[in-house]
């Protein structure tokens, strides 16, 4: 049933997309291909005075929540009078529509051109207002305010922090042209931060979200760059003899791990993000690459073929002890630590299929999240609840996202463009 729906959804999306495709950078559109069976039924009532503005807030909140797969939108049509404050919500009306929660609000114009945005989240089962908040915002901030409201609702009802205000980075390839794009997590507002006729790879967000490290082949070999998102200034921080690849930030943003071959073989080094202070982490006779810091900053997880096949290892930066983490199968790569410090997301090959999976350190349990056959480059959302990864559809690279329990799946599609190498940005600085 799901595959049939997927095909139908793809047809709908493709038939609609060309009209939005005329902008400089192809915008991703998002389709949900499966939801949590425990989705929370929620009614998002359009806000009072919303129609007086060019962009409403309730629609963006509804889109965010439904896209997460954790919520099911309840129809609000025909409820008269339409409530806009918590005390106007009649629990019986919404219980009859099977809603557990109702969101109401208003966005009244102020004399200075800004809006007084108020919203309330009402639990109609317990008949209590869970949240009531107000913001004074300019129209240019409506979208970010809507994402903030969605984050608040998500956290209140699921217990986990929302990621609707975060950003993502990814690489597109159109003909010979590669672009590194930064966009909102819902695909809105894509901006190219670097473009080249040679490949771009491995974008990685600094923990404060102000810089990206990435690999560019513009010098006919892999070189690691760090670029400021605010000024666009960029610097080649690792351009040694041989190949320079696979950058990763330490959790405090003060170190980069990189893979260099300057001393023979692919080996992991640490350096300052400005390119100074280079130090080798460990020495092996094998490939060591794809190093990522664990959330406590005290260890690296990385891929190595020291055991004959590529497997994932963990090395303490304090003691030098190296521990093998993966044992099943002959190809386990691309480890990405989960923010709770309890495991990793990684890519495994099974009977020729490349799939995204999780590994729990304590139980050694592997859970496969995606079907393959060509799923790679996973990146974990900062709340640890979603994984974005590169996949394929009709011979073209697309991005997809899956919930950490494997139940909710989304596809992010851009027209006539190969999309790959996604990287989920950090929580915004508040």
């Amino acid at each position, binding site marked *: 049933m799901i595959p049939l729906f997927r095909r139908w959804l793809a047809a*709908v999306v493709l038939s609609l997309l060309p009209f939005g495709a005329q902008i400089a950078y192809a915008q991703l559109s998002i389709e949900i291909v*499966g939801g949590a069976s425990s989705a929370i039924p929620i009614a998002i009532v359009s806000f009072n005075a919303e129609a007086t503005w060019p962009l409403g807030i309730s629609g963006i909140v509804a*889109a965010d929540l439904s896209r997460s797969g954790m919520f099911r939108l309840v129809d609000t049509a025909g409820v008269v009078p339409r409530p806009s404050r918590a005390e106007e919500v009649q629990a019986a009306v919404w219980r009859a529509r099977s809603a557990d929660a109702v969101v109401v609000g208003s966005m009244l114009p102020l004399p200075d051109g800004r809006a007084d945005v108020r919203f309330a989240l009402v639990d109609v089962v317990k008949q209590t207002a869970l949240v009531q908040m107000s913001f004074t915002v300019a129209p240019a901030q409506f*979208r*970010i305010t809507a994402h903030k409201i969605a984050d608040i609702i998500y956290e209140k009802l699921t217990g986990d922090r929302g990621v609707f205000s975060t950003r993502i980075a990814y690489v597109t390839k159109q003909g010979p042209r590669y672009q590194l794009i930064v966009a909102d997590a819902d695909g809105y507002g894509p*901006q190219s931060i670097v473009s080249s006729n040679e490949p771009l790879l491995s974008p990685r967000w600094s923990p404060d979200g102000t810089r990206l490290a990435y690999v560019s082949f513009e*010098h*006919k070999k892999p070189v690691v760059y760090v670029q400021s998102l605010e000024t666009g200034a960029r610097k080649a921080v690792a351009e040694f003899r041989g190949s320079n690849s696979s950058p990763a930030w330490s959790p405090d943003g003060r170190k980069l791990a990189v893979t260099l071959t300057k001393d023979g073989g692919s080996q992991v080094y640490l350096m300052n993000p400005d390119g100074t202070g280079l130090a080798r982490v460990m020495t092996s006779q094998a*490939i060591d690459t794809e190093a990522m810091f664990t959330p406590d900053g005290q260890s690296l997880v990385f891929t190595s073929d020291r055991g004959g096949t590529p497997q994932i290892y963990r090395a303490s930066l304090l003691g030098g002890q190296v521990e093998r983490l993966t044992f099943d199968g002959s190809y386990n790569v691309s480890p990405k630590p989960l923010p709770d410090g309890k495991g990793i997301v990684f890519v495994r090959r099974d009977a020729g299929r490349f799939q995204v999976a999780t590994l729990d350190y304590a139980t050694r349990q592997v859970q496969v999240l995606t079907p393959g056959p060509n799923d790679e*480059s996973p990146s974990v959302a900062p709340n640890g609840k979603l994984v974005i990864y590169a996949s394929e559809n009709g011979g073209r690279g697309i991005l997809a996202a899956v919930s950490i329990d494997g139940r909710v799946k989304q596809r992010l599609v851009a027209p006539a463009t190969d999309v790959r190498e996604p990287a989920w940005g950090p929580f915004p600085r508040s």
Partner: protein
Amino acid sequence: MRNFLLVAIVAAALVGCSSTPTTEAPVEDHGAAGATAPGGATTGGAGGGGVTGSSIGGGGADELRNPNSILSKRSVYFDFDSFVVKDEYKPLVEAHARYLQSHANARMTIQGNTDERGSREYNIALGQKRADAVKRMMTLLGAQDRQIETTSFGEERPKNPGHDETAWAENRRDDIVYAGE
């Protein structure tokens, strides 16, 4: 079981702003002139075509370009998951090693490549291992370490853009590029 489906189309024309303004960085063309690159790096603004340039012939360049010379052959192919230089490519590797030995000022880059399967980052390391294998053989045959830089394109520069075993076999290779080409 409740299956929950929704299609969200984000209209590109919506009025709004992005949280942080970003600036696109221009990429300058530092590419070595030559015909080996399918598309040279270009400046970052308008999307122009790839830049190509003429090669500058140095001493012995004719020998390298003569199609009847084994030195004009520049690719070494590998089996799946292998870094072993196959016997059929040994004469090619030996000829280039002898050339380096007799032209002390000659410099080359060996660019390793993989097929498209698996992790892009890990494939950079795999391609590097293939490039290192050919370099090791050349230095054993008398070439100097400083004459050869090994780099990797991973899976990023396929010779054959297909997605089958024939294409993959053409893409698991080292390319030899002399400085100035």
